[in-house]
């Protein structure tokens, strides 16, 4: 083990780590919001909008993230859209994960008994009040495990952004390995970094789940 190389490379690794955190959190926020929009779009009772929704799903779930990112990165300029590598990364991952999130939202909304909505309707709730007081507080607890899962997958997949030279942590570790000819050390560090990020994410998910389902655990 040649640990002394870290003395020289820690600023690069640190900036890579920060970059990964930025790119992942940006694309997750984008995905969570776009996912809600997509879910609401899918509930419009119209054949055309539903077909557009299905098309979005099949394209973004049916092709690898790597291919999508490549197409945005190299295909974008052909359409006059020139984005930085980091922007392509955020956009690509956001669009990709939104497709999954939307379906997770859908499973959550579908899992609530219809009678609860009817009761609220019957007692005079507006549609917005039904959403904010009956549906969302319960759905959160139901979908958080799936959202956490999908977020962890996305964070690990963010490594492929190194291929389009986004200076995130995998990019930094690969650079370090190729410059120092020490492969094992940077990759152990890399594995540890992803593990720590995902550990924090999963603990956060557990915490939110616990908070939002306390009413179920009171038996």
């Amino acid at each position, binding site marked *: 083990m040649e640990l002394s190389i870290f003395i020289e490379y820690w600023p690069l690794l640190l900036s890579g780590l920060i970059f990964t955190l930025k790119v992942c959190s940006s694309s997750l926020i984008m995905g969570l919001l776009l996912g809600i929009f997509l879910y609401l779009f899918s509930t419009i009772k119209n054949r055309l909008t539903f077909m557009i929704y299905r098309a979005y799903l099949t394209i973004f779930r049916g092709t690898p993230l790597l291919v999508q990112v490549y197409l945005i990165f190299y295909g974008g300029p052909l359409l006059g859209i020139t984005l930085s590598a980091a922007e392509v990364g955020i956009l690509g991952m956001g669009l990709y994960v939104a497709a999954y999130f939307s379906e997770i939202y859908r499973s959550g909304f579908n899992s609530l008994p219809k009678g609860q909505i*009817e009761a609220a309707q019957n007692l005079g709730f507006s549609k917005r009040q039904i959403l904010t007081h009956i549906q969302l507080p319960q759905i959160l607890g139901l979908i958080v495990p799936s959202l956490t899962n999908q977020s962890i997958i996305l964070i690990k997949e963010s490594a492929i952004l190194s291929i389009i030279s986004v200076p995130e942590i995998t990019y930094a570790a690969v650079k370090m390995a190729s410059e120092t000819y020490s492969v094992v050390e940077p990759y152990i560090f890399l594995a540890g970094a992803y593990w720590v990020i995902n550990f924090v994410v999963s603990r956060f998910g557990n915490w939110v789940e616990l908070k939002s389902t306390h009413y179920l655990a009171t038996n």
Partner: protein
Amino acid sequence: MIDKAILELVDIKKRFGDNEVLKGINLKVKQGEVVSIIGGSGSGKSTMLRCMNFLEEYDEGEVCVQGRMIGYGADAKGNYIKAPYKCIQNDLKDVCMVFQQFNLWPHMTVLENVTTPLKLVKKTSKIEAEKKALEVLKKVGMEHKADSFPSQLSGGQQQRVAIARGLATDPKIMLFDEPTSALDPELVGEVLRVMQSLASEGMTMVIVTHEMNFAAQVSDNIVFLASGLIEEQGHPDLLFKNPKSEKLKTFLASWH
């Protein structure tokens, strides 16, 4: 005025696809009257009740509550146009429904289940809402469970809370959709007792039920539904002791 119907169904028809579930129902419910709807499964009892508060959209006819047609307006040619959501809710603000599956909101305590509609819909203050909630919970004998969650209650207790939740909104008409069918036999009595006290206080009630003895005791009018039509109706003393239609005779025989 006394004889005027507070709730009236005029030639109600309802189809699910090709299946016509209600084939022209006419019914008048007067203020303070208790009407029980009986009939075999699939006869359209629940659908009929759900049409009364527009949880089910009827295809033809009219449902009138306090003289106002529910759910639709008409255009110049007389075609039905579905009324806006808010408009329907406003016309139905005096009608409340008690469901077979209770449909309490599991993420709220008993107290919150009762106060939330008051706070959100009637814009009652928190203090007033809680006062009112405890009052109605006391009435159904559930004030001691105000801070429990629905999952901690028995079915009978949940149903009593559901009745309290409806009562808190000061309804003029209460609809009961098989309120005891999901309960263990030993829990049926506590719910029926609450309903009986409501009936004796003069609440207008429409009840879909399989509890024949209870229906006979509390009802002013029994409606027997068979394959989407009212086959026979009348005062329980007449209807149960001296049924006229063959279908009702067969139906009653299966209950003895």
